[in-house]
């Protein structure tokens, strides 16, 4: 919201500086995002009176002597402007002056003739025709003769002014106007507010057959129309043009300017229809028909549907309600009679239509935030007053007021002074509360602790009594009065994370200890991410929740797997030249609910490892470490059917026989499609894993019980076996453990293939640890165990001792 300082001063006698007012506004809830000093960049530019002027023959230059009052009564300045004349008053930028855009002026000769500055045009000072008449004329700015030489030019042309760019919170749509801010300024400074004039006289003429009807009162709770005739379309007065210009609007014509002026000043979007263009002299406010079309003032055409509210004449839409008028009923130079519209439209409907059509305006911005009917009434009255003040039309007796019946008075409620203070936690004196509320235009009658309150009509945000009043009081009284207390009356509670949350932290730390860095990836991705991983069309992971209004197709489905996110991060890192790394994330995947249930959010642990030093077994090691910390023993099972993993280098993770996850090397066919340099070796060493976190945790040990440790030393024996190539290490180890309860650990320490053993065979050497029980193990005990183990291995797996 842009509010000019000078415009505010029309309503409030402000005795503080712009900076002081900025502080005041900030303290009462209106942050000034930017305080713009209009002539802030201008210095040492003063009024100069040209006392002598001599043309330099053979050039376009004039040597002038100028009187700049206290800066010197005879200063020589050379100019090339053809409109210079003796006696002219014009701005002169003296030696050392600055101009908008950081332009610096210094005394220096022009074509060898000494010149002590520069005389300026209006545009050089940042002026335009609306801010100062004549500013856009070619040549020097011709100032009135009564201007005093040596005066700061900013005071003369109105550039010693400020614009407050104020951010207004969503609960205060009543402050989307100069008047709205002026009300707050008056309250916070404790000054009186001078209301803009809204009186006007109505002629006894009515417009025959004019009819206004609202068919959709839910979307248009109030609609005011007033006919004005004998319009003379002409230029607006200076003061109006200036105020519009300060707010960044260009003057168009008096009638159009009045609608814009009321929008900025009162906050009521106005519209003016050329009455002669309204077919059947009718205005009907209704939902658009499916496929109905309108061309708005900016010549864009829109196809509408019943979700859009339109203003129609007898046959066709003439305005897109609250957003923009139609081209077909636009005010032109030929307009002789018009119909003013001031209305309140439902804010969510304006917003939805504006978004759906991609069409917005200053009007729609205000309607979206909300307009009170008080503002609607005030806006219409102000517009009619301005018609009269500008003498540009005759206000007819044809006035229309369609109302859905909202009360025409402020909200009334009772409140307790004690409760207001209880909310704040401090004691604001009663007189102070009353004074503040009065300044904010609340009517209050006090009876002891009880306050009977009537809120101002424009304060539609006030609803529940004490909390609202507490906020009003404290923002005026000052937040510095709040005395910090540390929950002095609150019950003592224990607090902290739940055991489950703490365990998740531990799992994360174990992953870190294994060299994995935690990543944070978006919860949504694209179906093409699933395509890349070759997830089959009928796989459960394809049953995704879709975002109806995604930012882009890349972020359009809720993820059902973390693997694509992990792979994306790996690829991005490889592209950046990070050739190795380990990453993980514990995060949700999202599955559609069945039979109308809420969707399911399941925690997954996703991880990836890449780089030259990684292989299946380095990753397997980290998976086992994870299990170890959780008190779990993981087994593996070959995973040949995971679309994105190498069928020969992938494993399901089994916990007590249940599949809880999978990990393995990225499938060759997926690797081949990655957008990476083909020659990078790291490309071929990408490992991905994903664990159903909750399923894993379900197996985790609830509590730890101490197991007695044997007092006797373990016995270690090595065993080298020759087996068929197909026999797996896991099978041998399982069999060794199963054969003898005293075996506490089996470790493979050598693998050999070669001529000595023969084709199709391999030799595997294990280190077997036997743990004694309540007495020491004798060598013959161990011999017996070994015999048993060998017997079983030979019988079940055909293993021979080597």
């Amino acid at each position, binding site marked *: 919201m842009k509010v000019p300082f000078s415009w505010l001063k029309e309503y409030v006698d402000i005795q503080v500086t712009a900076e002081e007012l900025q502080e005041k506004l900030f303290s009462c809830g209106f942050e000034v995002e930017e305080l713009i000093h209009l002539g802030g960049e201008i210095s040492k530019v003063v009024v100069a009176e040209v006392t002598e002027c001599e043309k330099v023959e053979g050039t376009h230059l004039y040597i002038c002597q100028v009187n700049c009052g206290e800066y010197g009564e005879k200063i020589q300045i050379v100019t090339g402007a053809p409109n210079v004349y003796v006696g002219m008053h014009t701005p002169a930028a003296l030696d050392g002056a600055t101009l908008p855009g950081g332009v610096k002026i210094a005394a220096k000769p022009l074509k060898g003739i000494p010149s002590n500055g520069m005389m300026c045009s209006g545009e050089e000072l940042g002026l335009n025709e609306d801010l100062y008449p004549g500013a856009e004329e070619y040549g020097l700015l011709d100032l009135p003769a009564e201007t005093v030489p040596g005066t700061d030019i900013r005071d003369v042309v109105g550039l010693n002014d400020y614009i407050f760019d104020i951010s207004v919170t969503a609960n205060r749509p009543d402050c989307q106007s100069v008047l709205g801010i002026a009300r707050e300024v008056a309250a916070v400074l404790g000054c009186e507010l001078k209301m803009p004039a809204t009186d006007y006289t109505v002629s006894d003429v009515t417009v025959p057959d004019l009819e206004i009807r609202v068919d959709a009162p839910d979307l248009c709770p109030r609609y005011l129309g007033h006919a004005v005739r004998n319009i003379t379309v002409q230029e607006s007065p200076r003061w109006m043009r200036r105020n519009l210009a300060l707010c960044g609007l260009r003057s168009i014509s008096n009638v159009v300017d009045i609608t814009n002026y009321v929008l900025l000043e009162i906050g009521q979007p106005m519209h003016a229809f050329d009455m002669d263009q309204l077919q059947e002299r009718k205005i009907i406010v209704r939902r658009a028909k499916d496929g109905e079309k309108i061309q708005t003032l900016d010549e864009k055409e829109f196809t509408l549907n019943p979700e859009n509210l339109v203003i129609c004449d007898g046959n066709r839409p003439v305005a897109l309600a609250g957003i923009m008028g139609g081209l077909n009923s636009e005010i032109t130079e030929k307009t002789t009679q018009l119909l003013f519209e001031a209305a309140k439209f439902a804010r969510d409907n304006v917003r939805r239509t504006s978004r759906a059509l991609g069409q917005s305006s200053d009007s729609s911005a205000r309607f979206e935030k909300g307009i009170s009917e008080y503002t609607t009434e005030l806006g219409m009255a102000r517009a009619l007053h301005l018609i009269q003040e500008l003498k540009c039309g005759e206000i007819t007796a044809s006035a229309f007021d369609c109302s859905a019946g909202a009360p025409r008075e402020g909200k009334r409620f009772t409140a307790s002074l004690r409760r207001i203070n209880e909310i704040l936690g401090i004691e604001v004196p009663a007189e102070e509360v009353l004074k503040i509320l009065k300044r904010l235009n609340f009517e209050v009658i006090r009876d002891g602790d009880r306050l009977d309150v009537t809120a101002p009509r424009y304060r539609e945000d006030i609803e529940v009594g004490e909390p609202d009043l507490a906020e009003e009081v404290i923002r005026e009284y000052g937040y510095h009065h709040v005395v910090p207390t540390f929950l002095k009356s609150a*019950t003592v509670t224990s607090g902290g994370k739940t055991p489950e949350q703490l365990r998740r932290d531990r799992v994360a730390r174990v992953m870190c200890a294994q060299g994995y860095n935690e990543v944070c990836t978006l919860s949504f991705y694209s179906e093409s991410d699933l395509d890349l991983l070759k997830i089959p069309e009928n796989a459960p992971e394809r049953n995704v929740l879709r975002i109806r209004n995604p*930012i882009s197709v890349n972020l359009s489905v809720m993820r059902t797997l973390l693997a694509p996110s992990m792979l994306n991060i790996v690829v991005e890192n490889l592209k950046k030249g990070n050739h190795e790394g380990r990453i993980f994330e514990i995060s949700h995947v999202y599955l559609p609910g069945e039979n109308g249930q809420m969707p399911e*959010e399941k925690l997954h642990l996703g991880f990836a490892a890449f780089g030259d030093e990684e292989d299946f077994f380095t990753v397997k090691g980290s998976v086992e470490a994870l299990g170890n910390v959780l008190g779990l023993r993981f087994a593996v099972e070959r995973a040949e059917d995971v679309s994105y993993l190498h069928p020969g280098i992938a494993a399901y993770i089994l916990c007590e026989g249940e599949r809880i996850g999978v990990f393995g090397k990225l499938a060759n066919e997926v690797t081949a499609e990655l957008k990476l340099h083909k020659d990078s070796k790291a490309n071929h060493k990408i490992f991905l894993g994903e664990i159903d976190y909750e399923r894993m945790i379900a197996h985790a040990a609830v509590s730890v019980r101490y197991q007695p440790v044997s007092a006797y030393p373990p016995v270690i024996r090595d065993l080298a076996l020759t087996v068929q190539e197909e026999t797996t290490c896991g099978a041998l180890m399982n069999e060794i453990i199963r054969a003898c309860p005293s075996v506490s650990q089996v470790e493979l320490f050598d693998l050999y293939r070669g001529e000595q053993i023969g084709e199709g065979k391999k030799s595997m050497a294990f280190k077997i640890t036997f743990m004694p029980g309540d007495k020491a193990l004798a060598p013959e005990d161990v011999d017996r165990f070994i015999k048993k183990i060998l017997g079983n291995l030979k019988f079940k797996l055909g293993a021979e001792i080597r």
Partner: protein
Amino acid sequence: MEQRIKALREQMEQQIAQVNSKEKMANFWQSFLGKKGSIAELMKGLGTVAKEDRPAMGKVINDFKVQVEEQYNILSERMEQLELQARNRREAVDITMPAVRRPVGGLHPLTLVKNEIINVFSGMGFDVFEGPEIEDDDHNFTRLNVPKDHPSRDMQDTFYLEDDLLLRTQTSGGQIRVMDRQKPPIKVLVPGRVFRSDSDATHSPMFHQMEGLVVDKGITLCDLQGMLDQFVQQLFDADVRTRLRPSYFPFTEPSVEVDVSCFECGGKGCSLCKHTGWIEVLGGGVVHPHVLENCGIDPSVYSGIAFGIGIERITMLKYGINNIGLLFENDLRFLEQFKEA
């Protein structure tokens, strides 16, 4: 005889000076103390000495023997020292050679900051509750007193899955879920992911918030500031202060924006605080009575305060990160900088 001993002593001193190896050590021993060594020889020669002189001469020989042995022991100790030194020299490594290790990973900076915030509030007795990320309109808006026609319901801000199913835009919905299942006293934090359809240099469509809620008897705006003072002092610096200023959230009334005095410049004004001396860190307020009523809590008996912290914002402030995108790029060179001390 004495002449002989004197000559031998001189010989011994000469030899000692020359011993520089184990071999020479052994030779030394052999030549003096061995079976056929000089001392044995002297002892044999004792027979030729006059009888009455024998004891005295025997003592002289013995003294000489003790002397040789002492010398030998000193020598032997020195030899061991020399050898150890030589061995140590042989075994010494170039300690500037690269280490052999698997680097340890780290938690994401957002997790570190989230945990830090939780730690501070845990100490004040706050529980931690994690609500669903996919919410219905009721929990995300309606029961939080967001009017049906409020701008924040607009499609522009909220990701919808179905008419009544959306990705939560704020962790505030957690307040409702907590108050539905628990009656006062309540002190709870609700950390988590939130989603808004905003994506530019300063916004990510997914980010993290931490909601805080206290509901009990006699809770006031003063408590909000007092509690947040504690929080920011623990999180940033013991000297920082908070400043409240008016703001608006549908679920609190009064609503406040909370600034902290700049911990970089101490409030004097610097580029971090944009020369204002204050940094905006979070929003909060006194819980709106409608919200309490919506959860079956009587606002005439209980009152509450609530606040919402943007975890990204705190993380960026804390670590001096100037672009929110870095937090989601997951470049390892970025992530590896955040280790817990």
